[in-house]
């Protein structure tokens, strides 16, 4: 045996991860998506109509962190929550040592700005509202960012849930085979035959769907493909000798399924995941567009695209939501493309 240079051994997945990182387009897309998602998760801290700091009568409050403060707490005469943008003006005019530090982008996605803006909504982009406002006078940038957060959270939730279901069902069908498999496959086929859109429309007309019920509905109709992939993988893998060896060493069925076979069945799961995310985002947009998705006034991309359609001559309502959707989906597809490439056993890859 020749002397082998002492290099740490890499598992199959580790090597593929390394290769994935060399595929710049996919790798940068992944980094960008993750950074954008992290930023959008923190959006309530910097895209909000709550002020960061209010100094009033010698006391400091931090509404962006502490939440609701009645207008009367700061000497405003209105009912309900304090209007910090107005408060800032009032404090400046009074010049009594009180001040307000607003968030960098001080608008809430569901807040109508009709009273403070001149003219009829939708307003075109301006210095205050970078991407303009929609037909109810709500800030488009704020809605886009919050909508991104919802879209991606939703998509990840759908993929996780449908994967869990699909993996469990597919593993059982493929591993046990025989009558379990034949019966199970027929049940899966019957389930696949249910018309998805009608079911969603019926469900959402019966109960106004929350984000979680929508996730569950979409996952309930999205796991069959994964189940069939998994079934095939388990069917193929279980005939290999390492499974016989696992039986011979006394492993339980569950240990064989999830410790021995499952790590060998990851390829279709991982390479399909980005496309499943794309599918889930598009589904949510489609449902929202049709009005069967998230309850208004939730900032959703589908609803924004719909506004673009009904205000087709307001360019900013058409261009910005569609570009955001397009860029997001494209980056996720880039990730998927690079993953596929990284899992390709051929060394010389097309992408570089």
């Amino acid at each position: 045996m020749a002397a082998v240079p002492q290099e740490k051994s890499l598992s199959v997945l580790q090597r593929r991860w390394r290769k994935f990182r060399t595929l710049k387009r996919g790798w940068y897309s992944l980094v960008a998506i993750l950074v954008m998602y992290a930023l959008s998760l923190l959006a309530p801290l910097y895209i909000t109509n709550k002020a960061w700091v209010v100094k009033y009568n010698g006391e400091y409050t931090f509404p962006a962190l502490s939440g609701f403060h009645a207008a009367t707490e700061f000497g405003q005469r209105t009912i309900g929550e304090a209007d910090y943008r107005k408060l800032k003006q009032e404090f400046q005019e009074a010049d009594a040592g009180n001040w307000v530090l607003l968030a960098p982008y001080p608008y809430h996605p569901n807040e109508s700005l009709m009273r403070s803006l001149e003219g009829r909504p939708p307003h075109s982009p301006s210095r205050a509202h970078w991407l303009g406002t929609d037909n109810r006078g709500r800030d488009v940038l704020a809605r886009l960012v919050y909508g991104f957060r919802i879209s991606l959270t939703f998509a990840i939730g759908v993929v996780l849930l449908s994967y869990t279901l699909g993996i469990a069902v597919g593993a059982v069908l493929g591993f046990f085979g025989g009558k379990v498999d034949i019966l199970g496959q027929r049940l899966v086929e019957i389930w696949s035959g249910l018309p998805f859109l009608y079911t969603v429309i019926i469900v959402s007309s019966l109960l106004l769907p929350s984000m979680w019920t929508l996730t569950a509905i979409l996952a309930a109709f999205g796991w069959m493909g994964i189940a069939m992939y998994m079934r095939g993988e388990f069917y193929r893998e279980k005939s290999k000798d390492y499974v016989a060896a696992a039986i011979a060493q006394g492993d339980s069925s569950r240990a064989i399924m999830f410790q021995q076979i499952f790590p060998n069945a990851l390829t279709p799961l991982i390479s399909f995941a980005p496309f499943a995310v794309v599918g889930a985002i598009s589904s949510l947009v489609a449902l929202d567009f049709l009005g069967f998705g998230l309850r208004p006034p939730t900032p959703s991309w589908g609803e924004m695209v719909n506004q673009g359609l009904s205000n087709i001559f307001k360019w900013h309502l058409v261009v910005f939501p569609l570009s955001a959707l397009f860029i997001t989906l494209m980056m996720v597809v880039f990730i998927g493309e690079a993953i596929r490439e990284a899992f390709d056993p051929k060394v010389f890859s097309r992408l570089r």
Partner: protein
Amino acid sequence: MAQEGNQRKGEPLLTVKGLKVHFPVYGGILRHKVGTVKAVDGVSFRLNRGETLGVVGESGSGKTTVGRAIINLHKPMYPDVELGGEILFHTESGQVDTNGITRDEMLPLRERIQMIFQDPFSSLNPRLTVQAIIEGPMKVHMNLTAAQRKDRVLDLLDRVGLQRSYAQRYPHEFSGGQRQRVGIARALATNPDLIIADEPVSALDVSIQAQVINLMMELQREFGLTYLFIAHDLSVVYHICDRIAVMYLGNLVEIGTADQVYKSPRHPYSKALLSAVPQPDPRSSNKGRIRLEGDIPTPMAKPSGCGFRTRCPIAKPSCAQDVPELRDVGNGQMVACPFV
């Protein structure tokens, strides 16, 4: 480690009586049973502690099926399999018939029977490190801490002639011979009594075959192992085995000591098989070569009576009547043919 096996050498370890393994074949639209593959159809033999029994035969003769039946692999993988006969495993507290028992019932015995597989590429899980592969049986059967398991894995790597640093590597980094050594280390992990070696060297280069065979023989001396050595290479079998059993179409046709079967085979099939062993001397005459006509019949439609009669040079009409029983032809050599 255990010298117990050496002390009790010669005691019976395994008795197989009339073993049958039949696989139903399904077909048609409704997937009904259309036939049966009689892979093993009434095989009986005894295996003593510390000895090596070779099982030879051509492809499709059922030798691998016998090995897998002894380690009880069929029921978990093909629930429809039809099993018959007895596989008696001799333990301190008496005999246990392991044929077709449930996986839970089999579990305590798995510690004592291990297997080496033919294909070193598919028998090691590509996603696990060598460490994880070898400690698999220990995790199930031995109550050891992670550190103790690690030590034992390193000892075993030493013992099978691999570097200790290989423990953290993955199977794809090894050659066939090295992988087979990993497979052997896994089989040794629980200090088993019996190792089923299913063509352990068939997939290896000839030079590596010798190394692995010699390793297996060393390990047998050291740990008092008993081998059921399944192979089709007769010279390898003669080299390593104490006794040899010849199989044809799911039946044993001859069994005896290695010398008896290799030097003076009695059954017409054994004779033909042995005459096919290549001679190292190119000038030696080929006169002794017995050529069989045709192919081995399909085990779905076995000939009546003696399975070999369709190709047998000395077949008689009576061969179609009954399946010939093994009979002693002297010095313990048993032959399933009434005419030799």
